[in-house]
């Protein structure tokens, strides 16, 4: 039995402790917002927060989250209106959308650490998540927007 906090709820899971968190979420808990893109910590499609830090769920065995707190895209906000999600809509970021949960979770971890990130901080963080559709310019704008309360809803 592995105990953790998932999106704010205590959970106890009787699953293979070696199973990566990605497949636990997707195949056993019905949380499909976290995506599989490579399974090797190379693309960032699977980024979730582990005690607030961004981690690649595809390379995080379940055993490693024992007693810790995991947040997925589904738990980022209660109503889908996290400032980043709103900014993503205003800037019309997603194309195919497949990478976007990872992008948003990465950006959310960045804003937790640097509420007003510089371009260089955005670049460093967001270079961890690949987007084949090339939405990077809009991601940059959306992160800045979410980080600037004065323009948030503009």
């Amino acid at each position: 039995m592995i105990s953790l906090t998932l999106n704010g709820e205590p959970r106890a899971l009787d699953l293979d402790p070696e199973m990566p968190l990605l497949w636990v979420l997707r195949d056993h808990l019905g949380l499909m917002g976290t995506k599989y893109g490579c399974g090797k910590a190379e693309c960032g499609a699977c980024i979730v927060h582990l005690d607030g830090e961004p981690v690649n769920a595809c390379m995080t065995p379940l055993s490693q989250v024992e007693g810790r707190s995991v947040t997925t895209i589904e738990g980022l906000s209660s109503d889908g209106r996290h400032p980043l999600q709103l900014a993503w809509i205003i800037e019309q970021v997603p194309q195919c959308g497949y990478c976007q949960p990872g992008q948003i979770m990465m950006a959310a971890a960045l804003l937790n650490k640097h509420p007003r990130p510089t371009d260089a901080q955005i670049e460093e963080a967001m270079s961890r998540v690949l987007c084949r559709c090339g939405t990077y310019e809009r991601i940059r704008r959306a992160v800045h927007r979410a980080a600037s309360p004065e323009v948030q809803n503009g």
Partner: protein
Amino acid sequence: MADAGVGRRLSRRSLLKIGALAGGGLALGIHLPVRAELDPEPRSADAKTAPEAPVELAPNAWVRIHGDGRIELVLARSEMGQGVMTALPMLLAEELEVGLDQVQLVIAPVARVYANRLLGVQATGESTSVRDAWTPLREAGAAARALMIAAAASVWEALPSDCQARRGRVHHSDGVRSLSYGELVATASGLAPPDRVALKSPAAWTLIGTSQQRLDTPEKVSGGAHFGLDIRLPGLLFATLYRCPVPGSRVLSWRAAETLKVAGVVDVLAVRNGIGVVAESTWAALQGRARLDVSCRPTVNANLDSQRIRSRLRIGLKGRSAVARKSGDVSLALAAAAHEIEAVYEVGFQPHACMEPMNCTADVQPDRCALYVPTQAQEGARAIASAITGLAPGRISVHTSLLGGGDGRRLEQDFVVDALELSLRVHRPVQVVWTREDDFRHDFFRPMTLHRLRGGLDAEGRVTAWFHRVVGPSVLARLRPDSIRDGIDPFMVEGAADIAYEIPDLRIEYRRADTPAAVGLWRGGGYAHTSFAAECFLDELAAAAGQDPLMMRRHLLAGSPRHLRLLDRIGERAGWGAAATQGLGRGLALVAAFESLIAMVAEVALEGGRVRVHRVFCVVDCGRVVNPDLVRGQIQGGVAYGLTAALKGEISFTDGQVDQLDFEQYPLLRFGEMPEVVIDILPSDADPGGVSGLGVPPIAPAVANAVFALTGERVRSLPIRLAS
């Protein structure tokens, strides 16, 4: 559900809840009831037995209006990022006189009426969706609107000309009376749809030409959007296949004793494409596959390697070949030229690398079959399902999920075959998951091509002769054999054979040189390889003639006002007349593709010995623009896609196998490498052209030409590798 038999409904707030619907066992396996004369194919069993909702109106295959006021629009193209889920409903809504906030989307089943006229089948690709839909969808919307107006006029005993439709209501010109579409359904049901409808004049458009927000964005930022891998069905099993890594090789023998010991593994089966491991979770299937003991039959394709392919293509640079286009006599003109230059260009293999790896979910039952699949080719998927299961097409339903990228890869059916065969054998719904390694290894690549170009200049520096031979494997020989005529694969020479420059003596050739490497369609089509060679070589001619590349193009396009307008605008926008900033090189490329035109100027620098693209100016003429923000997104995306191929990796083969199996070996363009993309869309009255592939072809030659401007070094192969 009152509307069982109506198809999956998608509201703005809950787009694509395929998983949720599936989990609840609701409204699945159903076909949209289109009018009988539009649907010559047998209905599915479900549609036949489904009770027709009492008050609803389907004036055509695209629009359904319900008595309770719901308005449903049908989407028959695959959303893979390009925005069809927004652009196509806009066409219907514009003429139907409803707002996008008032409609729900229904994903189309497979039916003749939903065929893409430009592709001949129900499929999405080659930047055709808006071009195909432009007139029929507006007419469908207008016909439904006319019917609503006729119904209101009959209720009020008024003239239709006294009635006006606005936001889902018909208003009388008295300014007092009005009825909603829902309220008019009963009356309208008794009326014949109009034979002829008038489309709105462009001046009256309220949606077309505006940057409406995408209908799929809210779900894509909440994590609730459902792609193929997110399909969940009761009793679903997950599967992965071991496929022999060398093309054409088959499994010789296999042992699964260790695999069957993995907790969660349900079964191991030999199928057409390899050995399938079926399990209760993706993880168990992957663990099981890693423990398989398989040996593959040796094949001659184990010789496949990039050097060998290159040598084989090189042979084709000389000797006989098929002629795709010819005017005048190039040999004579070259002989008579004051100056002749010749060059060979090379374009490497490229993968699709869609962010969502290939996958398919199939539920094969004795009397019916359902596919849940991110596909660009619904009709093909149904045909293969029919062939494998032996069921009539009418018993097969195809449910298209969102696609995590497509780019031509999802026109193929290989991943569909896997899911069908496994579900057929295990009698349960099966989701076949390709790993990233599978996805790289078993892609249908953009082929390697070689290009031999020769050009002649007269004493005044005018281009008098142009020769371009494309050498490479045929892509369409497998996909559309009928399209090959006189040895010409139209895909391989598009962008070369239809080159717009007016050159008196011109000859375009294609020499087919097949290789065992699987090849297929790719974003930007054949233009993506031909334009690199042609636009770079034109710059070589300009340099040889001592002319400015933009001015040389202007001279060669004197009779093409649309092209000239583009060139003039890009010149202004990029400040072409003034010297480039110190340390930056500028390069130009111009491409006409998919009935659109694009000019690009790339600004590049060298940083740490590598090419760094800082800014890209784009001027686009894509005819009438349905949604400018979607166009911008597609151009930005095309630039990123093309830059990955121009600057980053390529696919190579050693001992019959693909060398690059992950994102470390085939790196994609990253956040910090994305240039600023400045896009101008020129106004135009022409019918819309395609844009999803449009940004790809010009970026490589624009960057290569910029590298020459900066370093004096010609770039003649992709991806770009600097010698110095």
